[in-house]
């Protein structure tokens, strides 16, 4: 698919070189893993191109996860996964401030809900110790004191202080933004369909585009990692087995019900159902773990979500009175084996970063350092030039709670998405620049518009107008309608006249940005409007009692005002009985 507004190659130097010299490294896939790798390689001096098949980045596994920055306390000790989580966790802590990324230090409680689970706690704590992650055993009473909203049945557990909550989307966006700011290039709508290696460089076939040349290929294609490997090497050394995880998000007041990340005792195949806050101030419950064939669609299953909700209400009973505001599901790029499928083929200048199934957000920065080592070790000079002496550190706009938001600052253009307090200026910024949103989903991930409690009830019209013609997939498809914009709505003719001044409120003391309209109707005193955009001098009568195209009088009465007469004390009986 070719997006209407493809991401351009931002660095002109890199762009000019494309025709002549190959890139040092092509990273296939802009999930969190690909974004982190691109960043690391760019910071080490490589000329990097990121090839992403979707119209926008983070369209695969990385679009939906629990957003926990894991310590790796429960990772299999001694594995690459354990090492990368530890390194990734440490680097995130070191750099998040400079990139403008949040870190919500909740800590986690691993809670056993019965004696069988409690019996497994010592082994888990021993693993944590081997992974160098400090944990503190707790009695049921201690856990209860820390989390008074927990339901019955707590049998014991331990605390992992280092587990934290982060922003699942701003994080990879920030990694990629830093890569781009330091010379990397991004192509979206760029699906790698095959490639040939001539001993010095790859020529990658890209659907609907010119071929891209690069000396090294890093396959970070997530849910399609095995397919990309087969397309490049002829066969794949691993198979992706997508594993779906569904989530329920509760409205913000529910976040007060859980201080820590509440983890169950993990099983062999899943970390289990987690209850935790989000960086945006909501409460999250999930994920499920369901094997499926489909690599692209993570459908919601109402019956399972009901069960998940019941489970959540068993963990935190007060959730019964809280409102669900969102549902989502993600696909883990699991493989037929438990471990990460990372392998370098120096002879083919190819690295696979596959099967990063359920810890990729935490491990990405660590994986990136590891991959850099593998690439640099392939051949001398393969990494290209020298690392930038003074790399650029772009900051992403903060959309998490707890740090100042744009609505607090002047010139924000006003709030458009009321539930998530997203301003017009934030939306404009998210649509602009080399990493600008290209899809509605991409705009949501960058700003959280429509992701709050009303799910677009209030702001859909404003958003559709604001993004019109600016997205590869429009908010609203262009269906013809006989109604023009503003055919019969207040913006077409409202005049908010502040005619008679109150003692405390002179009519001329209106917002400075409200243009004097001079559009007063004949009978009104000189009108000014305090309402942005209301200034139209069309002189349309104030109340056009339009007898509209309703099919029958009966249908008009259908929405009539049926206030009872004040005198009578009787039931308002059903009409028509």
């Amino acid at each position, binding site marked *: 698919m070719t997006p209407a507004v493809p991401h351009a190659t931002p660095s002109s130097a890199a762009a000019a070189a494309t025709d002549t010299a190959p890139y040092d490294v092509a990273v296939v896939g802009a999930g969190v893993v690909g974004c982190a790798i691109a960043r690391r390689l760019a910071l080490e001096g490589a000329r990097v191109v990121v090839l992403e098949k979707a119209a926008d980045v983070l369209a695969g596994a990385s679009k939906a996860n629990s957003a926990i920055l894991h310590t790796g306390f429960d990772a299999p000790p001694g594995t690459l996964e354990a090492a990368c989580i530890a390194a990734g966790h440490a680097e995130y802590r070191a750099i998040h401030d400079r990139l403008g990324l949040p870190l919500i230090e909740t800590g986690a409680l691993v809670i056993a809900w019965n004696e069988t689970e409690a019996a497994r706690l010592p082994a888990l704590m021993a693993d944590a110790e081997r992974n160098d992650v400090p944990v503190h055993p707790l009695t049921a009473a201690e856990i209860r004191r820390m989390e008074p909203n927990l339901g019955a049945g707590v049998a014991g557990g331990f605390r992992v202080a280092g587990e934290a909550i982060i922003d699942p989307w701003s994080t990879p966006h920030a990694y990629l933004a830093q890569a781009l700011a330091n010379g990397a290039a991004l192509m979206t709508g760029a699906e790698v369909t095959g490639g040939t290696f001539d001993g010095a460089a790859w020529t990658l076939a890209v659907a609907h585009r010119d071929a891209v040349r690069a000396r090294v290929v890093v396959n970070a294609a997530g849910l399609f990692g095995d397919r990309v490997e087969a397309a490049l090497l002829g066969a794949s050394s691993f198979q992706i087995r997508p594993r779906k995880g569904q989530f329920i998000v509760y409205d913000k007041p529910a976040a007060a019900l859980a201080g820590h990340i509440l983890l169950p005792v993990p099983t062999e195949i899943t970390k289990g159902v987690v209850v935790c806050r989000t960086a945006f101030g909501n409460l999250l419950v999930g994920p499920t773990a369901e094997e499926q064939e489909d690599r692209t669609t993570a459908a919601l299953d109402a019956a399972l979500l009901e069960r998940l909700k019941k489970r959540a209400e068993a963990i935190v009973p007060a959730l019964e009175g809280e409102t669900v505001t969102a549902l989502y599901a993600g696909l883990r790029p699991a493989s037929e084996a438990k471990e990460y499928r990372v392998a370098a083929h120096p002879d083919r200048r190819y690295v696979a970063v596959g099967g990063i199934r359920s810890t990729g957000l935490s491990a990405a920065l660590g994986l990136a350092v590891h991959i850099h080592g593998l690439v640099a070790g392939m051949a001398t000079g393969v990494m290209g030039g020298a690392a930038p002496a003074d790399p650029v550190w772009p900051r992403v706009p903060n959309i998490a709670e707890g740090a100042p938001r744009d609505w607090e600052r*002047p010139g924000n253009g006003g709030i458009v998405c009321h539930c998530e307090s997203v301003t017009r200026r934030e939306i404009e910024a998210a649509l602009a620049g080399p990493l600008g949103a290209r899809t509605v989903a991409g705009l949501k991930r960058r700003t959280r518009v429509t992701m709050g409690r009303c799910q677009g009830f209030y702001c859909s019209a404003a958003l559709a107008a604001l993004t019109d013609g600016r997205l590869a997939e429009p908010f609203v498809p262009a269906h013809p309608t006989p109604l023009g914009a*503003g055919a019969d709505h207040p913006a077409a003719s*409202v005049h908010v006249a502040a005619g008679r001044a109150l003692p405390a409120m002179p009519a001329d003391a209106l917002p400075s940005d409200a243009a004097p309209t001079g559009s007063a109707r004949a009978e009104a005193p000189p009108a000014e409007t305090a*309402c942005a955009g209301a200034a139209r001098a069309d002189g349309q009568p104030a109340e056009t009692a*339009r007898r509209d195209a309703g099919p029958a009088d009966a249908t008009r009465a259908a929405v009539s005002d049926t206030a009872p007469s004040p005198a009578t004390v009787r039931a308002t009986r059903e009409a028509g009985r």
Partner: protein
Amino acid sequence: MSAATPDAPDLAIIGSGPAGLAAAIAARALGLSVLVIEREAEPGGIPRHCAHSPYGWREYRRLMTGPAFARRLADDAARAGAVIACGTTVMALNPGPALTLASDRGIETITPARVLLAMGARETPRSTRLIGGTKPGGVLNTGALQGLVHLNGMLPFRRPVVLGTELVAFSALLTLRLAGANAAAMVEPADAPTARWPAALLPRLLRVPLHLGTRIDAIEGTSRVEGVRVTGPRGTRRIAADGVVVTGGFRPEAALLRGTTIALDPATGGPVVDQFGRTSDPAVFAAGNLLRPVETAGWCHREGRAAAATIAASLAGELPPHGPALSITLGDGVAYVVPQRIALGTGPHHARGPGAGSAPDAAQVRLQLRLTAPVRGEVRVEVDGRRIASLPVDSRPERRLVLTLPPDVPPGSATVRVEAEA
């Protein structure tokens, strides 16, 4: 704060829907200085994009469309001297009362003498109803559909499935028709339409199949809706559709009140009020659909007007103080009751309850309530097992019932419950 908005009006009204604007007009007539705070770019609330009749009959003695009604109310409020600050959101309500406002100017704080909460109600989204399937574009509430159609001239789909049969679902059908589209089907989980005659005739007039006893199992489609899987009396099947209008299931827009000192009623989802529309903070009042889901624009308008009168009385020191009260608890068969408490003090001023819209010194209090299920029998108000008021009913949950209490109710607690006919 800046010179833009007065920072200490007699009355700050949050929300410029029919309730807020009616209160603004009435409060100006009573001589109060009024600031209306509206987060949208235009005043008027929901009727701004409800471009069909009938609105305004009771207020202006003529049939108007929603936008014309909104316009007229906004004009009247402004002409009466109320300042309407649009594009301004109330972010926090603190004791005092003090309001934190956000706008293009950044953060400002105002300290009005009284606050009227008139934030309205909205429909529940797909997510809250735990509807399964994929998450393509084109799944909207009626409010969003009407905003797109009537504010932008944009039609998001041509043959959507409409879920629900409250009145607002028929409003969605009318909107589709005005925009040159029609619904593929109307789907209702219950065995009968929620809104009865004459609204229920509309699907037949528009040739829209109405599937009762039918629920949506899954929404299908990748980028846009492609179909809807439903299960009903005739089993499971797929309806081809390019959108879903998720209608009704109204909730008061009360998020602003969570975590404040204002007591909320889980039954209504709105603030607890007394017969003066006064919340648990005696300087803060409420009116309109914020009080409960959901009434018509005309009813909300009356509540707004009544609130202005009690607020003026409150400023004049004429309301009984927050003191002894009769608090209402819900018994069998009653979904909610408003007001939830009856202030008993012997202040010089009595009112009849939100929406009474009549002389505020009338001594009788009126309760508005809804049933949980269709009932033929009696609604009773009991104090210590003793009946103090009752109302014969043969009614359904979607009907508003109004019950008048006798004068001089005792303090304590009253239960409102349904006694079904044997």
